[in-house]
């Protein structure tokens, strides 16, 4: 049934999450698709905190010096530091443990951004790359339609809270409903309160994802004010009282 759509679709479980590549251009080389998934596997082997021989694990054990790490590792950790400052410490690679780095919160979005660059370089203009609900979109789903992205309803798993009709955008959602309390406010080490999810849209997924994580960790009191002042990124915050607060450019 999907065979009648142009392009190709593929899902693989990498980095502990389903990664979906959905290309809608007519002609897609198998080598391009393979290259994208090879890239994600390299990211996993380099950045995973679950693999003892990853560079992040070796940095954490003190058997790899930062100056000897791969330039991509240095770049990711540098961006994590800058985002930590930009988010008043709410996006923090040390959120789970003071002694260990965990840049996973940036790695996923960053890896998807780089995958999108691989697709761009291959001449593809209509695609979606979705890593566990955070995605980069380009072009159109079919020539006459934009991509239609549902924002997961935080309380009803088979529904969506909003539908974005969009193109050329990164979309990231951080929330509490999937795995229980896995996001902590790094200042209080407690789960945030009064907030169900934050969705951020903008040009870059790594940034959007970090902003979503930070805003969610802030909790209901602070998140909406903070997201209202972002530059180049729009936000939709769903609060526990059932209200939805969106910046004026969200979804437009």
């Amino acid at each position, binding site marked *: *049934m*999907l065979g*009648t*759509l142009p392009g190709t*679709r593929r*899902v693989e*479980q990498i980095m*502990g*999450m*389903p990664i*979906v590549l*959905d290309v809608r251009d007519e002609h897609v080389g198998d080598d391009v698709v393979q290259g994208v998934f090879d890239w994600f596997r390299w990211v996993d082997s380099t950045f995973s905190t679950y693999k003892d021989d990853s560079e992040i694990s070796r940095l954490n054990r003190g058997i790899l010096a930062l100056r000897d790490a791969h330039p991509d590792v240095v770049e990711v950790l540098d961006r994590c530091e800058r985002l930590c400052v930009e988010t008043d410490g709410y996006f923090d690679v040390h959120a789970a443990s003071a002694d260990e780095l965990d840049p996973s919160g940036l790695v996923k979005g960053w890896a998807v951004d780089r995958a999108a660059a691989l697709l761009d370089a291959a001449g593809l203009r209509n695609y*979606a790359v*979705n890593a*566990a*609900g*955070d*995605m980069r*979109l380009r072009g159109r*789903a079919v020539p006459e*339609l934009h*991509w*239609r*992205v*549902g*924002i*997961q*309803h935080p*309380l*009803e*798993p*088979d*529904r*969506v*809270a*909003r*539908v974005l009709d969009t193109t050329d955008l990164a*979309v*990231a*959602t*951080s*929330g*509490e*409903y*999937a*795995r229980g309390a896995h996001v902590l406010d790094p200042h209080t080490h407690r789960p945030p309160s009064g907030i169900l*999810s934050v*969705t951020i849209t903008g040009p870059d997924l790594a940034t959007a994802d970090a902003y979503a994580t930070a805003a969610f960790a802030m909790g209901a009191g602070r998140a*909406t*004010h903070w997201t*209202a*002042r972002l530059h180049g990124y729009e936000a939709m915050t*769903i609060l526990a009282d*059932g*209200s*939805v*607060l*969106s*910046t*004026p450019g969200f979804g437009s």
Partner: protein
Amino acid sequence: MRKHITAAASAIAIALPAANAVAAATRSTAATVTPKKKVVTVTKTVKGTQIQAQEWGYIEVTLVVKKTTTTVGTKTTVARKITSVSVPIYPNHTNRSVFINQQALPMLEHEALAAQFTGGINMISGASDSSDAFIQSLQAALLAGKRA
């Protein structure tokens, strides 16, 4: 879906120059007088002068004033109504002013949480991580996208 605008209001600066601006408004032109009953409506935008709002910096209030002149024979009544008030210059010259404006200016659209079905959707953004439900919903969305 009903929407309304929520803004954290900072009313600190608005009250001060209003008297000045109203004074400017009263200088608007009179309507033409004719023998029979006649209603003339003139809408004017008037600015107050820039006023130093204590230590917060300069502000300037703009009013839109609707003036209705009703003439019956030799009797003329004039009614003026302010239809909008805005503050086009915000105090920004002190850190405190900048702080207040940053708190006040962000506008957010406010609506109630809705639940929609996933028909016609290509992708779902959510914090679903590795759950089977995510993969199932995604596949359903892909199929729905195909049908759309």
